[in-house]
Structure formats: C-alpha cells, structure tokens
C-alpha cells in the first residue's frame, strides 16, 4: 500500500513520454554499461585482481540511472558501499572506476579508497561510504550546504537537491534517524532513496525492521513525505521520481523513497546465499530492468532495432574490456609518494612521529 502523497500521473501523460529517444537510449546504454562492468568486476575479483569487500550492483541499474537521470549534474549525490552503479551513472569513466578497484594510481582515488569508497568530484559524487548509514547525515549536510549557499552566501539562485542512497538495512542505523529528523526539522533538500533489495546481507527486511511494507510511514514520523516506486522499471522510476524530486527542489524540503529493487548477486563476493531461493532470484530476473527498457524502445517507441541493440552491447563490451586492460596496465601507487600523501592538506612538521607526510600526485580526475 502506497503512502505516497504525490499522485499517479494520468494515463497517457507520463513524464517519461516527454523524454527524447536519445535520452532513453543513453539510459539503456548506462544501464547496460553498469551490468557489463559488474560482470567484469566479478571476473577480476575471482582472479584476485580486485581485493577487499566488493558489492555488485547488477539488478539495481534502474535505481541509479532513473534517479540520477531525474536531477541536474551538479546536484550532489552520496551513497553507500554498493557504489559502482552510482559512479558510472554519474558519469565516472569506467577506467577510473575499474582502476580504483585494481588499486592503481589511475583510479578515482589513486587506489586509496577501493570498491566501497568511490569519490568523483567533477561528477559531484561525494563518496561511496563503507559504514552502514554513514552517508545519511552527509546527505543532510550536503543539502544544508546547498541551501546555505543560496540563502546565506547568495552566490547562486540555483535550488539544488541532494540524492542520498541507502540500503534497506541502513534503515535501522541510528545515524539515519538523526539525519532524517535534522532534514525534517531544518527542511533540507535531501532525498533519501532506500534501494530496497529486500535483504541486508542474509537478513530479510521483515526480520530487520518494523513495518517493512510501509517504510514511508517511518519517514512520515519525521515530517518527511514518502513515496514507493518499483525500481525494476527505469521509466516508472522517472515517472514517479522526477515530479517528486522537482517538488523537493522547489520547496527546498526533504523526501524519502522506498525504491523496490533486487540484487542478482550475493551480498558481497563471498556469500553462499542460503537465505533466498533460486526461484525468487529468477522471478526478479524475469522483470529485468534492462530487458524491460529494450522491449519498450523496440516495440513501443520503435527507436531501437535488434541490430542497434546488438551493436550497443558490443560497443559497451569493448569499452569495459578496455577499462579492465587500462586498470591492469596502470601502475600501482608508489609507496613513498602515495602512502604518506593526502593525509593532510598542509602536511606540516611534527604532525606525526613518522614525520613523513608529503604532497602526492594530483588526482587523475582533477
């Protein structure tokens, strides 16, 4: 049951109807890019070229692409550790993303952050954050800063809105509740987008949180308007999210979205997945967001042919292969230059007993 207060668009007049074919084809491209990128990521992980914890986004593509596609490029975005999809949807070069996971100097954080901590300043991505819930007060803070910029500094007329993503498991982290209350209290333009894939590791949402079918009620408790969206269709995401985000932006207030989705892979690369059935996974794969969009573009819009789709997939495959090659061939960060740099902006004397802080190489994204 939806607690949404934003009304359903009238039949035949969906916001997405107004989008150009180019835009939708670009979204298809981005979604497929994420899917292909993640396939290669898994391979590289299995070959031990990527280390640490690695969380695959496959299945959730419509979430990042549809919501990021509903806002401006300079609206701030912040997310959790399942962040490759957001980085790519935001426009990060797949090379920088892959190289980061390979721990190379050409990565978006010079190999210092890794899979869980993707940052991209030129694309206004304020990080993937590894600690569950850590990004949610940051979302409020980014919204606060954009509002301050406009209302106090008066250096811009632009009303911005911040997108802050979290998993369903993060609903239960204290930080998120404080963040929501602050956002509600100060009327901050941040939209908390719960990518509700039904599980937090092996814990189903019903075992982790109260009112699992009425998450928007939780936000209501903080005076925040909530909305439920089917995250397996990028058009549905846009149709509902776009007007919602516009309203949050215009009125400079927070929002909450229960974006129902599914992760095709395990929680991380080491998860035997005994907590769910193969049938359940299949059920969602049958509603796959990419297949969904391809069907729409081929049969409804008629702006994509089989050949063009094949061609697009091929192009993407090549691009991701190149990213892997690039990552592989790039240098590891030099120990002397990079281990001791970026610790402080002013690496002054006596900051540390090791006395080695320095300035390192310029970040490749800047």
């Amino acid at each position: 049951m939806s607690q949404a207060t934003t009304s359903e668009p009238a039949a035949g007049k969906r916001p997405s109807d107004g989008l150009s074919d180019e835009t939708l084809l670009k979204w298809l491209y981005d979604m497929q890019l994420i899917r292909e990128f993640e396939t290669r990521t898994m391979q590289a992980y299995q070959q031990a070229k990527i280390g640490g914890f690695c969380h695959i986004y496959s299945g959730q593509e419509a979430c990042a692409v549809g919501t990021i596609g509903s806002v401006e490029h300079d609206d701030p975005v912040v997310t959790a550790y399942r962040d490759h999809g957001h980085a790519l949807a935001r426009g990060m070069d797949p090379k920088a993303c892959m190289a980061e996971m390979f721990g190379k100097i050409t990565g978006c954080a010079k190999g210092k952050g890794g899979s869980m901590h993707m940052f991209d300043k030129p694309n206004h991505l304020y990080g993937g954050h590894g600690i569950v819930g850590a990004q949610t007060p940051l979302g409020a803070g980014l919204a606060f800063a954009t509002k301050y910029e406009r209302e106090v500094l008066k250096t811009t007329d632009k009303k911005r809105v911040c997108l802050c993503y979290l998993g369903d498991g993060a609903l239960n982290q204290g930080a998120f509740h404080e963040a929501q209350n602050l956002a509600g209290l100060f009327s901050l333009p941040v939209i908390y987008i719960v990518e509700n894939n039904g599980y937090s590791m092996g814990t189903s949402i019903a075992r982790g949180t109260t009112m699992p079918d009425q998450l928007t009620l939780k936000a209501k408790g903080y005076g925040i308007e909530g909305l439920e969206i089917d995250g397996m269709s990028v058009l549905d995401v846009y149709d509902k999210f776009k007007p919602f985000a516009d309203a949050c932006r215009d009125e400079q207030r927070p929002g909450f979205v229960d974006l129902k989705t599914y992760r095709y892979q395990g929680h991380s690369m080491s998860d035997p997945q005994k907590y769910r059935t193969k049938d359940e996974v299949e059920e969602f794969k049958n509603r796959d967001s990419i297949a969904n969009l391809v069907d729409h573009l081929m049969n409804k819009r008629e702006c994509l042919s089989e050949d063009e789709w094949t061609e697009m997939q091929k192009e993407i495959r090549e691009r991701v292969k190149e990213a892997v090659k690039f990552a592989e061939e790039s240098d590891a960060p030099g120990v002397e230059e990079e281990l001791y740099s970026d610790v402080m902006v002013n690496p002054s004397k006596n900051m540390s007993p090791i006395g080695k802080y320095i300035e390192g190489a310029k970040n490749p994204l800047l």
Partner: protein
Amino acid sequence: MTTTLDPIELPEIDFDHAPSREGNREIQFREALREAMSEEMRRDKRVFLMGEEVAEYNGAYKVSQGMLDEFGAERIIDTPISENGFAGLGAAAAMYGLRPIIEFMSWSFSLVAADQILNNVPKMLYMSGGQWGCPIVFRGNDGAGGQLGSTHSWCVEGLYSNVPGVKIVIPSNPYDAKGLLKTAIRDDDPVFFLESERMLGDKAHVPEEEYYIPFGKARLVREGDACTLVSFGRPVHFCVQAAGRLAEEGIEVDVLDMRTIRPLDIDSVIESVKKTNRIVVVDQCWPFASVASEVITQVIERAFDWLDHQPLRVNTEDVPTPYAKNLEAAYQPNPDRIVAAVKKAVEA
C-alpha cells in the same frame, strides 16, 4: 553484588589447570571461540549471544556456526544493523544480571556504538558508586582484514585502551582464544575481546576439556637474551617469523605475547628487559598514543637504567589504511621491519 539478579553459584575457576598445548586435536581459531561460548552457555543460562547475522546465517565469519541449532533463537539472537542499540541493550541486560556476548561483525562497526561501549559500559560501576557493573563481552574482528580500506580496518586497541574500566583481550592463537574467551565470559567486568579475520582459519591443537587462561599473564613464546620483542594479537606471528630469521644470524630474542592489554603484564616485560637490556614493541595500531607508546613509557618509568638502547616501536604507518595491496603491505608491521628494528637495537 553488582547486578540486580542474584548471582548464580558457578564452580570456581581453576586457573592452575592448564592442559598441554601439544596434541593433535587441531581446530580452527573460529571453532575455539565457538567452543568457549558454547561451553559457557551450556553451564549458564544467563549467557546469550547477540549480533548481526549470528543466528540464521551462522555468523558472518562462521564463528557461531551451529549455535542457533543448539541453543535456539532465544539465546542466539540476530539483530538489525543497529550497533549502538544492541550494544546498549547488552549493557543494561548485564547490569540487570544477564551475561551478554555481543558480537560486532567488525570492531570497525563498534565506532557507531562508541557512546555505549566507551561512555556507559566502562563507567557504570564507577558512576553508580559500585552498585551496578557491566559483566558483558563484546567481541569481533579487529585489524586490517586485507584491502578493506580505511573505514573497515580499525585496530581499536590503541583507542579503547585509553579508557579505564574495561579489560581488553587480544589472543594470537586458537589455544589462547578458547581459554581467554571463557575467562572473559566468566569475568564480572566488561571485556572487549579482539579477534582477527586473518586468523579465524588458523589451526592449532586445542584441548577438548575446559580450561581458563588468566588475564594479565603474558606468554613467553620464544627465548633469547639479545632483545625483548613485545607484541599482541596477529603481529605476534610476525615477531615469531622475525625471531626465526634473526636466530639464523645468531641473534636470539625473547618474544612476549601479551594476550591482554588491560591488564598489561608489564612485570614480565620488565623481567625480560632486565635480561636483554633492549626492547622493540610491535603494534598493529597507529603509533601516536598507542599501546606501544604505553608499554615503552612504563618500561622507561620502571627500568630506565637497564636499557642499553632507546626503546623502539614498530607500528602501522601513521596514515589512514590504504586500499591498494602494495600500500597496505607497506603500511602494516611486517617481519622485515621488525628484523630491522631489532638489529638497530642490538647493533648499537
């Protein structure tokens, strides 16, 4: 009595009963931990285990595998990702008289529960003027797990040992893990028990019988008179490796595995230093205000005249934990750095 419920009479612990470390009942570190918890849970119904994925998933790192089957969902309790909430829940349950074991999937995640574990738990007895204590065990993975990056690689012993009111245990091997965890569960004070993801699969002989290892007793792992090597937790293994290499060059060292940080067996350290006149402390935390700094300070306070070389420490480098494999390797203490430090101390 520092809890609300009447205490239960349990057989007194015989710390002198120390079964041999030699034998062929080889089990993993994680199994030793499980055995310790299960033995205590069978004896004492007040003991329960709570944490993320401990029950139905059988533990994120399989430490609690099978425990749900044996003890049921009332005593092996899955939680949402709400560390501050369930740490505080455990604290109060302990005040009331239960014996909670709270698992942090990683001590890195205990930081979101800092108020409960640092501000409430260690101070409860003092704040209440001795009325209520917190007999609780918090346990989980500590230290760099292998390319987990800066948010997930915390070594909390440096930070947390600054706080009076808690005991801090950091075993380096399965035998000690079992005996120390049993002691922790039986202890009337709060205990932070630090495990390592990198060691959970380590195998060694662990006696099937029950035994307890007292807190505050270091173990002399290897003997020599050239230098005292002090460590705790995973880096003890790096020290042993380094000691083996040094021995090939005729440099024999004492290697002390501290086993607990609070209490700190400084007496054993001093005794060794009086023999070797040199000390190197190896610590997987950052150097500034670390356990290594504390050990060295106490050595200087108590055995300054016995030193023939200034004390040295080998810590992780004083930077956030990097992700890249090569940077992480250079960041951590390793046998090379330990060998170099000992040689510096010895050759002077």
